[in-house]
């Protein structure tokens, strides 16, 4: 079997880490914006752009974590059947 344990899951883990880092930085700035930009314009802007922007990142990180778990299971199964 040429399937090497960890290769695909390691790459997915890298992708997940990148997304988490971006999301973390985005959270910091979005929270800062909520504190210092307090008018109705910010509410409209948040509703239109910031909320979907943050939600899709959060959703993607969650799904990527599930995917990573599944890929690790597949890799384990394959390695047990070499």
């Amino acid at each position, binding site marked *: 079997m040429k399937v090497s344990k960890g290769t695909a899951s390691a790459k997915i883990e890298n992708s997940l880490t990148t997304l988490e880092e971006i999301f973390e930085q*985005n959270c910091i700035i979005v929270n800062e914006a909520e504190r210092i930009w307090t008018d109705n314009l910010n509410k409209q802007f948040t509703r239109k752009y910031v909320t979907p922007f943050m939600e899709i990142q959060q959703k993607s990180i969650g799904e990527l974590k599930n995917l990573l778990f599944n890929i690790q299971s597949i890799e384990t199964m394959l390695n047990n059947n*070499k």
Partner: protein
Amino acid sequence: MSDFKVKDILIFSKLEMRFDETDKTAPQALESGKEAIEELKRDIQVNLVETKQELASAQQDLIEAKAIADLDNNAGHSDTHAIQQSIQQLTSRLNSLQNALAQIDALLTKYNQLQGSFDYVLKECMPAKKELVLIENIAKKYLALHGDSNSFNYHQSSSIKYDQKQDDVDVREVGDTFHYTTKNNLNQMVLDELEGKLKEPGYTGNKISIDNISQSDFTLLEKNGYEISKIAPNEYSAFKELEK
């Protein structure tokens, strides 16, 4: 515009940078994840083909080993047994690979949907970058961060004295007070020119009231002897009485 409340306009460029950074980095990260799954799928497919070939070969070996054993009255029994074990292992591996391939296909379908949703939402959100630049420009004007002393103009008439509103400046003389409203930032030149005009012969007034000042002007105004008053939340004015 009176509802425009922002403590630091740098937040607009910070937000813009986060949208931009996410647009540049996140799709690439997701694509790398997909490539990893596709690579794993290709490995599995190759191994599946190899395993099928190995299994076919082992089954053929078993047939031949059985034929030899039959001819030679159970001679080569251990060979037959070893081949059967090998076939069992290969069959188990084949099942695992087929199972893994089915799971990978399902994961890839889900992943493609996720990637599609992500790209769609991100694309929908990207006009935010342009809007943030626009908002920042409006905020800069509103907070009077870009001063232009050349835009300072005022006139005088007899009855209501003067009431002029241009793009950048609004100056009125009411009674003995000059009311000055600026949309740009204050600077020393503006204050000097305003006070200089008030001291000119023919002007009877000796008070200056400046409206719509930003907090960034406080130091300059206080240095010039102005008294600052809060007239509403986030709205300030400055007042000074000159000796004539």
